[in-house]
């Protein structure tokens, strides 16, 4: 009887002691898992913040770059341009006042050189910052750029606009980003693709403005974003700045196409240039 009771007690003791240590172990595991999850969540939040910060830096870089370009282009066009016009005026004044033939021919040369210089400066200033963009909007600037490229590089560029005038009202920063992307794509086509013609088709999808760039060049099988080229990197950063999505499709011998989708919501919260 006594022994039986002791045995029962021992059963209980063993049971309780064992499960006590087991529950200790389980709580250790539980706390470890909780801590780990918290740590991971923190890490993810940190990474997200980092990404956001990098995006902001990128935006600031591009913004200040464009501002500086605009300033330089304006200075070039206004100050140096007008100084050169003054010079030219003085030269023609000298020409009108003198009877000495040598000076007449020299001033004639002088004027010709100044004209060339003015032309150069205007070209540089325009390529630095497409002045028409602020005045006439994306569509006209793109047409002008394409006309110029067609005559200079012998590339046939066709623009199909099916947006019903929205491209004309595009905010300046979006227009500028899209314009730079188009410039980059066209210059890529000229450099690598040996294409005869390019089509830029714009249109509306539900909540997106879609811009589709297609060339009929030799295309490529490699991933165009994997290379070290700065061009594609620029395109990516500019498009991510205006929150546009994009995908590129290309295969060897089948041309290259680049599809940009700009959410209409992005039109409202655009960045502002001075």
């Amino acid at each position, binding site marked *: 009887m006594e022994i039986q009771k002791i*045995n029962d007690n*021992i*059963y209980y003791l*063993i049971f309780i*002691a*064992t499960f006590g*240590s*087991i529950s*200790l*172990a*389980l709580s*250790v*595991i539980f706390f*470890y*898992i909780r801590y*780990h999850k918290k740590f991971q969540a923190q890490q993810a939040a940190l990474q997200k913040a980092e990404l956001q910060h990098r995006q902001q830096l990128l935006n600031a870089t591009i913004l200040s770059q464009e501002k500086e370009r605009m300033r330089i282009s304006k200075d070039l066009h206004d100050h140096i341009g007008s100084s050169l016009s003054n010079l030219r005026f003085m030269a023609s004044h000298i020409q009108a006042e003198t009877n000495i033939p040598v000076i007449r021919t020299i001033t004639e040369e002088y004027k010709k050189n100044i004209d060339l210089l003015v032309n150069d400066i205007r070209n540089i200033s325009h390529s630095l910052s497409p002045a028409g963009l602020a005045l006439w909007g994306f569509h006209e600037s793109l047409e002008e750029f394409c006309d110029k490229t067609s005559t200079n590089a012998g590339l046939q560029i066709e623009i199909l606009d099916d947006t019903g005038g929205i491209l004309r009202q595009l905010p300046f920063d979006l227009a500028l980003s899209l314009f730079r992307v188009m410039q980059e794509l066209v210059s890529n086509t000229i450099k690598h693709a040996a294409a005869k013609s390019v089509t830029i088709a714009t249109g509306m999808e539900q909540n997106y403005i879609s811009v589709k760039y297609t060339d009929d060049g030799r295309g490529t099988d490699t991933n165009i974003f994997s290379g070290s080229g700065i061009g594609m990197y620029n395109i990516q950063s500019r498009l991510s700045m205006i929150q546009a999505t994009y995908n590129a499709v290309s295969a060897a011998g089948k041309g290259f196409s680049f599809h940009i989708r700009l959410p209409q919501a992005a039109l409202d919260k655009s960045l502002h240039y001075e």
Partner: protein
Amino acid sequence: MTLYINSGMLIYFSGSFLLFIIYSVIISNYSLAYFIWDLHATFLLTMYILFAVALWKYKK
């Protein structure tokens, strides 16, 4: 994956630790010894199941 192996070890050894300690004292009582080995087997099973989960996760 290491989490499963570690927790398996922890559960098994923390459970069996006491059983191993008192085993020499109660070896004369057969039914109690059987009970202890049953408990021990349960912990062992738990550990092996956790190992299996770990390996399965590793394969994935």
